[in-house]
């Protein structure tokens, strides 16, 4: 059975890779299988690992407490609210009453905005500003001094570039140009990392085909 699975995986890999030559029906077939299986897997996984234990079991527990102990004060009833909001969200599939889905959506947008306002302010603004306020010259350590100077110039010129209320001319324009260079270097570094990432995926597949499947690599 394991060998059968291995062959299926290898043939599907080759089918997807055939797109490198040109678009073809085998590629489309493999792509469709991938999309179908992914959707199915996500659904089953979400149902058994989330909806069943979190929603069903909790609500069942709350009902059981109510029936056996006569207690209605149970935190687990809150899951019923979540369940109702979930059902309301699904109502967008019914065009006539689809507007109801806006209520749970508003709940999500409001709570997410509130949550992220604090976290982004703390993690991505305050902490980053704090880490930029550094001594440009560190006595006895030339490496750190150069590194800190680069950070300072990069942040300053980058901010100048994004200041559009004044024409980019003279010294101001020069600083903006340096800012562009810093941005270009950043994009270049990101692209380099992206190439490394994509190559890693290819290497992983080659290792599977030549190693796990054909047994040519030890």
């Amino acid at each position, binding site marked *: 059975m394991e060998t059968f699975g291995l062959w299926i995986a290898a043939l599907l890999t080759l089918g997807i890779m055939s797109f490198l030559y040109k678009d073809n029906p085998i590629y489309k077939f493999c792509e469709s299988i991938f999309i179908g299986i992914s959707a199915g*897997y996500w659904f089953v996984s979400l149902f058994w690992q989330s909806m069943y234990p979190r929603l069903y079991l909790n609500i069942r527990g709350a009902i059981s407490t109510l029936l056996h102990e006569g207690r209605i004060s149970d935190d687990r009833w809150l899951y019923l609210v979540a369940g109702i909001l979930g059902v309301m969200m699904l109502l967008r599939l019914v065009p006539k009453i689809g507007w109801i889905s806006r209520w749970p959506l508003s709940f999500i947008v409001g709570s997410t905005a509130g949550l992220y306002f604090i976290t982004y302010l703390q*993690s991505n603004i305050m902490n980053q500003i704090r*880490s930029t306020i550094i001594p440009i010259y560190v006595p006895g350590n030339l490496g750190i001094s150069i590194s800190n100077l680069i950070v300072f110039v990069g942040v300053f010129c980058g901010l100048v570039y994004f200041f559009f209320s004044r024409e980019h001319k003279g010294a101001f324009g020069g600083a903006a140009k340096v800012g562009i260079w810093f941005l270009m270097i950043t994009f270049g570094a990101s692209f380099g990392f992206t190439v*490394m990432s994509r190559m890693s995926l290819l290497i*992983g597949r080659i290792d599977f085909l030549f190693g796990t499947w054909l047994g040519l690599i030890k």
Partner: protein
Amino acid sequence: MNFFDKLMKIDRRIIFLFVAAAVILPFFLSIHQKILISPEVQGLYDAFESLPPGSKIMISYDYDPASAPELQPMAVTAMKYCFTKGLKVIILGLWPQGSIQANMAIESALEDPRVKEKNPQYGKDWVNLGYMSGNELVIQRMGTDIPVTFPRDYQGNPVEDLPLMQGIKNFSNVDFIFNLSAGYPGTQEWVQFAADRFHAKLGAGNTAVQAPGMYPYLRAGQLVGLLGGMKGASEFEKLTDFEGKGTKFMLSQSFAHAIIIIFIIIGNLAYFISRGVKKK
């Protein structure tokens, strides 16, 4: 059409062939590539090393098979290291396939003779809490109550029955968090919610695509260390002395990069020379 014009219009499939050759050939060569350690990987290793045996470490597997070639070597090495050093591992996943990747990493780790010798046991040395939907809200909830967030483990056992989970209430009972991430939810959310809000000590292993975005967090001290892509994995393997797929794949990675650099140079030369010829 001169030679350089032809070079500019080279069929992309020829480039694919060169890249394929550059990736495949190194698998059959016995060249050992020197791996240099970067400060961010050293930082992560130092954080692991500073943990005494018995420390509780949380590993969040936030990726799926698509990113496994980069992240799985890191995961396997981390598991081997934790098991041999006597660190207790609490596994979870914010991606549905994450906990399955964790099981695969553990299977690989248990094959290592040094790990076998330690004979790690489920429930005592490691637990897999499974996947939980809710993205960053799961982290937020764990900050106040981990057993309420994960009442049962991956196998359906109540967490209060697992010896390792005794005394674990929130992040203050976890000595270190290591996040393996391929996107959202991932390292950024762990930084925002676990490190900055609940002051948890956090390190990360990221896909190379994601890694550049994490450097500001590293510089600001919100992350103690970072493994970026396969290169990061190979460095971590070298430091921990568990040579694995990260190291094995690096030669192919380097060959492929060399080919791409050569093509970039050829492409640019051809462009400028053919432009010069046309101007004349």
